[in-house]
């Protein structure tokens, strides 16, 4: 039987506020345990929450960016469960009246087409603390620094049909939250976390199969692997005559498998009710409009502009706008060097290669945008050849000296002196009479041999256009 996969993603994004959602405790990552956990975060009796305006603004900013309905009145609820890293015994979340309603994201698929993925809702909630189960014999260690950190939970419609589409959606979401500057989106540090609801059904049917919720997926690569594993597992279960059980499964990246979180707990029953300690959140048009007015240029708009203004291909523009930092870097190089296409080539090929090789972010690059722009200018004004520019680029990684200083020090200036090139050409012709005879007899392919010899003699520094022209004249 042929199966169709149905996937919906729940993504938790940590909002990059300075203080927590409901208290004035700091939210810095990596602080010593419990140094950012104070009386409200610890649920000491008598403490009350007050909502962080910046967190609310960030949630609205996201909603506006994806063209979603923004609720002018939203309500917090208590989600009740017991776990030691949740001191209050409930998580403050939003159930029936989330701040962000229906919206959508457009993702680019591998075959070049685009697909619109619906977003059901996005709501604010507080994060829990962290539990350590290995470090203390017979005990669990609790760190409540993360307890109360603001989260935005973004829930997609079950519109995703493959692991690759899920990754494309997640990458687009990641780009948008980074463009909006509402989260650092660091999956390894847990500031962006993904749970995937996966089910399968026979192709052509419309009813949903039982779904498994896969948790603990903390990189783009694992999202793809975990979902593909789960699809195979469910197909195996059904084809062996079994039934997929609706359950929560944990992804184990080391073993590349998902496994059931067998829990003795009574099935989830969170007994939500409106949080009596918080009043309804009411915002007005002026608040929403002011946030809309401050939206930055988003990836899709930027991509279209790069194609239009800089004459780039869809592909190059897509690569360049994948992060805001890369797009900003490119624009500096393009504007300062004046050659937008050459700039795109250097940023997407040489620079991207360097970053990938060293696992660097663009802001870690030892070659800053203005230096790369100077290098490209030197190719354009014929100071160096494109080939030797790569040598200069390599040197620039280690050497912070100026581009011109490196070119001079290494003696890489292109030879454009007609007399000097003529001398080279004459020597090559004199030393290779046999090939000259072949060429003159009509074997034009030999021309490449002369170019190679002359280029070699110049140590790669001869201006290729001048060299070609002189050779042609002399070989007539």
């Amino acid at each position, binding site marked *: 039987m042929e199966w169709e996969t149905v996937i919906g993603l729940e993504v938790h994004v940590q909002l990059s*506020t*300075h*203080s927590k959602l409901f*208290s*004035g*405790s*700091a939210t810095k990552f990596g602080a*010593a*345990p*419990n*140094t*950012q*956990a*104070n*009386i409200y975060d*610890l649920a000491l009796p008598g403490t009350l929450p*007050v*909502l*962080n*305006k*910046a*967190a*609310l603004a960030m949630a609205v900013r996201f909603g506006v960016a994806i063209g979603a309905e923004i609720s002018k009145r939203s*309500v917090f609820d208590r989600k*009740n469960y*017991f*776990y*030691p890293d949740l001191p209050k015994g409930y998580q403050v979340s939003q159930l*029936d*009246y989330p701040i962000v309603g229906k919206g959508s994201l457009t993702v680019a698929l591998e075959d070049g087409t685009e697909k619109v993925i619906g977003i059901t809702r996005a709501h604010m909630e507080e994060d829990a603390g962290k*539990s*350590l*189960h290995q*470090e*203390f014999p*017979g*005990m*669990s*260690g*609790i*760190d*409540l620094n993360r307890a109360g950190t603001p989260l935005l939970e973004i829930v997609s419609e079950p519109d995703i049909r493959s692991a690759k589409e899920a990754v494309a959606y997640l990458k687009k979401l990641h780009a948008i939250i980074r463009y909006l500057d509402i989260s650092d989106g660091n999956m390894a540090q847990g500031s962006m976390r993904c749970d995937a609801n996966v089910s399968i059904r026979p192709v052509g049917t419309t009813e949903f199969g039982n779904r498994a919720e896969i948790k603990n997926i903390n990189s783009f690569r694992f999202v793809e692997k975990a979902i593909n594993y789960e699809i195979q597992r469910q197909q195996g279960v059904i084809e062996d005559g079994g039934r997929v059980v609706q359950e929560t499964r944990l992804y184990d990246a080391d073993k590349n498998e998902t496994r059931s979180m067998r829990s003795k707990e*009574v099935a989830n*029953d969170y*007994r939500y009710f*409106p949080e*009596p300690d*918080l*009043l*309804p*959140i*009411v915002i007005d048009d002026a608040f929403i409009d002011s946030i809309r007015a401050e939206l930055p240029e988003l990836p899709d708009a930027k991509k279209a502009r790069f194609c239009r203004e800089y004459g780039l291909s869809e592909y190059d523009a897509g690569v360049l706008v994948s992060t805001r930092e890369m797009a900003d870097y490119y624009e500096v190089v393009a504007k300062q060097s004046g050659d937008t296409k050459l700039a795109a080539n250097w940023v997407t090929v040489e620079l991207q290669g360097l970053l990938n090789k060293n696992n660097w972010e663009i802001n870690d690059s030892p070659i800053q945008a203005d230096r790369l722009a100077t290098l490209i200018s030197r190719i354009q004004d014929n100071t160096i050849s494109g080939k030797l520019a790569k040598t200069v680029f390599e040197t620039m990684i280690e050497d912070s000296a100026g581009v011109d200083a490196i070119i001079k020090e290494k003696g890489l200036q292109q030879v454009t002196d007609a007399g000097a090139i003529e001398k080279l050409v004459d020597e090559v012709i004199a030393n290779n009479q046999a090939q000259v005879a072949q060429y003159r007899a009509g074997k034009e392919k030999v021309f490449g041999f002369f170019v190679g010899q002359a280029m070699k003699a110049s140590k790669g520094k001869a201006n290729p256009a001048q060299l070609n022209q002189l050779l042609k004249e002399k070989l007539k």
Partner: protein
Amino acid sequence: MALDKSEVEKVAHLARLHISDAEVEEVTNRITDILVLIDQMQSVDTDAVEPLAHPLDAVQRLRVDVVTETNLRDELQSLAPHSQDGFYLVPKVLE
């Protein structure tokens, strides 16, 4: 609407309340009485009434995003039964 004993036991478990076997019947009867009242309330036509999230007719005030709390870990951990290396220690929650 009557509640049966197993439902009372489930709710008690979720709320981590211990109810002895001797108490279950009385608790079941008392909760059933409340549910009867709720049934009566649900028969009222509320189509034109907005759901009420809070009895106070007011809206939430917002806080400026600044860190106002300092590190009080030592004082706060002196209230806890067990702590070590900066962590609060609790009976192990995973086997």
